[in-house]
């Protein structure tokens, strides 16, 4: 136990807590216009407590044993995703939550990502990387079943994250670039079919992403206002609690998906740079853990988590700046939302787990 603690990656833990702290400050400002921040801060602290407990819990069990239970994990995941569709709560037009009484709601898709990382890592571990597109099919099926359930909710953002995780982990597993390229080509050919699966509002978001002036008071509104918020922060920002786009509620969902606009507007380029630097440090630690992992399983898990976080950050921050379409995925550690925080802490716990147990354990 002592040895394990000696190998605890303290920098990663510190960076994670710094991110959460930064997020807490932003949350206070983002919710100042939503009836005062104290209720939100209290809930956030409760979420944090639960998430920390989960992190510790994840640390206690060797990730190899966790992955060993892949059947149970995969099955439980499917059950939860089906449950969402059956008894889930609808908010903002999507059925993504399972009600948990006084604790609010739980979003299984936030944990589904982690489960899929673990089970896919286990699936890839010990096998030769598929050399053909046909060889990839089992892994596609592995991810495809839960993916369909998530698209049904609908949660296009999480579906995209799972796609990214699959690509990232296949890449890390050594699948040749030619095969990955072929997969990309197939995905493009399937795009019209995917388009037909989309809901109207999702299509509108994509069209608006290409040209926000199409509908400045409707679908393009969020994007336009987000860009105004970020841009108007200039170099140093307008100051905390002084962002007019934030406080006057020009930004929808400014404490969840659009929280980066609060950094951009109130703390400016400098504040945004600090936040991105913290994420970069986090990713640097994750890369380090992946490259020094004790086995292939650990490396694949670390790679999957790394992919997930980088993708989350890029898509979320990119969407507030008009680089990516608006898909509604949270900014890790920062956006308000318990399931997301829990998922990210479990992921962090897994990284710490992999790091801690990189040496063969001697009993």
């Amino acid at each position, binding site marked *: 136990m002592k040895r394990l603690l000696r190998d605890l990656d303290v920098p990663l833990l510190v960076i994670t807590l710094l991110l959460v702290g930064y997020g807490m400050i932003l949350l206070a400002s983002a919710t100042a216009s939503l009836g005062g921040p104290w209720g939100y801060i209290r809930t956030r602290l409760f979420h944090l407590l639960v998430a920390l407990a989960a992190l510790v819990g994840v640390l206690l069990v060797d990730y190899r044993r966790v992955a060993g239970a892949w059947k149970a994990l995969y099955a439980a995941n499917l059950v939860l995703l089906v449950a969402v569709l059956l008894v889930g709560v609808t908010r903002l037009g999507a059925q993504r939550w399972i009600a948990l009484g006084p604790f609010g709601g739980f979003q299984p898709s936030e944990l589904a990502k982690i489960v899929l990382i673990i089970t896919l890592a286990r699936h890839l571990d010990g096998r030769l990387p598929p050399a053909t597109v046909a060889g990839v099919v089992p892994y596609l099926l592995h991810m495809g079943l839960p993916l369909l359930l998530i698209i049904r909710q609908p949660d296009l953002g999480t579906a995209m994250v799972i796609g990214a995780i699959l690509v*990232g982990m296949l*890449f*890390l597993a*050594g699948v040749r670039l030619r095969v990955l390229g072929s997969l990309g080509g197939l995905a493009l050919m399937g795009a019209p079919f995917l388009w037909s699966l989309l809901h109207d509002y999702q299509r509108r978001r994509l069209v608006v992403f290409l040209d926000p002036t199409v509908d400045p*008071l409707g679908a393009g509104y969020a994007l336009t*206002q987000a*860009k*105004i*918020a*970020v*841009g*108007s*922060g*200039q*170099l140093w920002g307008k100051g905390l609690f002084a962002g*007019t*786009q934030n406080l*006057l*509620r*020009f930004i929808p969902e400014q404490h969840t998906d659009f929280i980066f606009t609060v950094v*951009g*507007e109130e703390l*400016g*380029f400098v504040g*945004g*740079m600090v936040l*991105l630097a913290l*994420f*970069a440090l986090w*990713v640097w630690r994750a*890369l380090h853990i*992946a*490259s*020094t*992992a*004790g*086995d*292939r399983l650990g*490396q694949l898990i670390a*790679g999957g988590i*790394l*992919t997930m976080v*980088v993708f989350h*950050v*890029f898509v979320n*921050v*990119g969407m507030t*700046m008009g*680089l990516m379409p608006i898909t509604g995925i949270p900014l890790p550690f920062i956006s308000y939302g318990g399931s997301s925080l829990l998922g990210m802490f479990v992921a962090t716990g897994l990284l710490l787990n992999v790091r801690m147990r990189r040496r063969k354990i001697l009993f």
Partner: protein
Amino acid sequence: MASEPSAKRIAGFAAVATLLFTVLLGRLWQLQVVQGAYYLQLSEENRLRDLRLPAPRGILYDRKGRPLVSNRAAFTVSLLAMELRDPERVLPRLAVLLGIPVETIRDRLAQARSRPFEPVRLLRDAPKNVVAMIEENRLDLPGVLIEVEPVRHYLYGALAAHALGYLGEISADELAARSGYRMGDLIGKSGTERIYDRKLRGHEGRLRVEVDARGRPLGVLSREPSHAGKSLVLTIDLDIQRAAEAALGEQTGAVVVLDPRNGEVLALVSHPAFDPNVFAAGITPERWRQLSGDTGLRLLSRATDATYEPGSVFKVVTAAAALTRGTATRETRVNCNGIFRLGRWVFHDLAAYGTVDFITGVAKSCNVFFWTLGTRTGGDAMAEMARALGLGARTGIDLPSENAGLIPDSAWKRRTQGEPWYPGDNANMAIGQGWMNVTPLQIARMIAAVANGGTLVRPHLVRQVIDPATGTVERVTTGPTGTVGFRPDVLATLREALEAVVVRGTGRAVAIPGLAIAGKTGSAENPRGQPHAWFAAYAPVDQPRIALAVLVEHGRRGGLVAAPIARAVLQAAFGIPAPPEAREGGEEGIR
């Protein structure tokens, strides 16, 4: 332990992550540092709304301080585009309530598309029952606002309408030609309202408020008070104006009353007129056409913008020219037997008076007498005198439009008709016929010049400009535009003759006991119908304070139709009560 190929792949991860973070940082730099100022401005526009604080338009008073035009509070129905929900249902309902076509509402909304948070005015001065109906259906009419706005109020309706003018919404052309005006502003479209618009309108104030994303005001950031427009004390005398309008009645024509000493316009009448109140709330185009087109040029100011053949009132010019040139003196005698021979042409007068002297010739308006004078004096000399008396040129009155009229001479005839000036033209011109065209205002100024001894005054409508904020009074003075240069003997003879017109000539209908009046009648033949009735006069003769011109279109006889109107005006001007029996004009008073 990580294998060699997986180390490469992890390096690939690092590369991709670095690339993505660099892209984010670059985009952040672009938005915040490169375009930051632009987005800051957009965010300010988002949160700041400038509400307009209307400035009360200046009041128009008559010369004795009685208000003629003021403002009253009225309800304006507006539409706030950003709060409008379900326009397909709301707009048709609103159109029915307001009684305006739904297309008009759509057009107005489309015009204001770029500023969805600014109310679009749909109906100014909405009737009370309409306002009540909208208030009752408030919940079904999201985005519909009722605001209180001042509306121009013309206290006496059509009184002096052409002098006062009317308001209308600024047109695209006017907007392009002026600075400091905005779409939807009311602007003076004619008369004093137009000429003095900048003084009258004042300066709009501004209330800068902070609003949230739904446009709800949260607080006032700054307040720039409005400055009320300046008030004008006009030269118009309400009593004289009313008397003149009453005397003209329903006859088509014009009356101009001047103070011959300084050119102040005491009354300016044109009939038929219009009620500017109709325009005050923003007139509909249909209504405008109905007013200006179908019912016969109501908007035309006959006193200043229409020209007429002067007929016998021009004999003032002929007489002055002849006396000045020495082609006639007070002692000149002419046999007014009703026939005038010019070469092989014979001119017939309507009546014969026997041999008359200068004074009687003018008093009786004998045509043979003036044909003789005109032939002796010549057209160019008469034209020169006419111009010296201000005919054929704009008077310079402070109104947006004015007709110059026309005084022909030989050069003009050669240029435009390609013909020389014939002796017959002299005869025609001598009695005010031919190509001549004058405005009633010009005739009033002409007679004023005789009254004041030869000064060509500049008629004007404004005496004082009052700043309601400071109370400062700015006196408006306008100098004369020229002098006639009468020789004293010419002036004396002319005045004597004009006085004789009233005492024993064609203008006896104007006579008022105790008031010495001088004047000249006219019955101007014209190609459009019966002769126009003219009368020009001034009083009192020794120290004239009033000069006036009356024109009744197709009124036939100046002495019978126009002179009694002049008499009513003079009675009002000098505070003389009208005698019980109305005096009839003499049978001779036909010109």
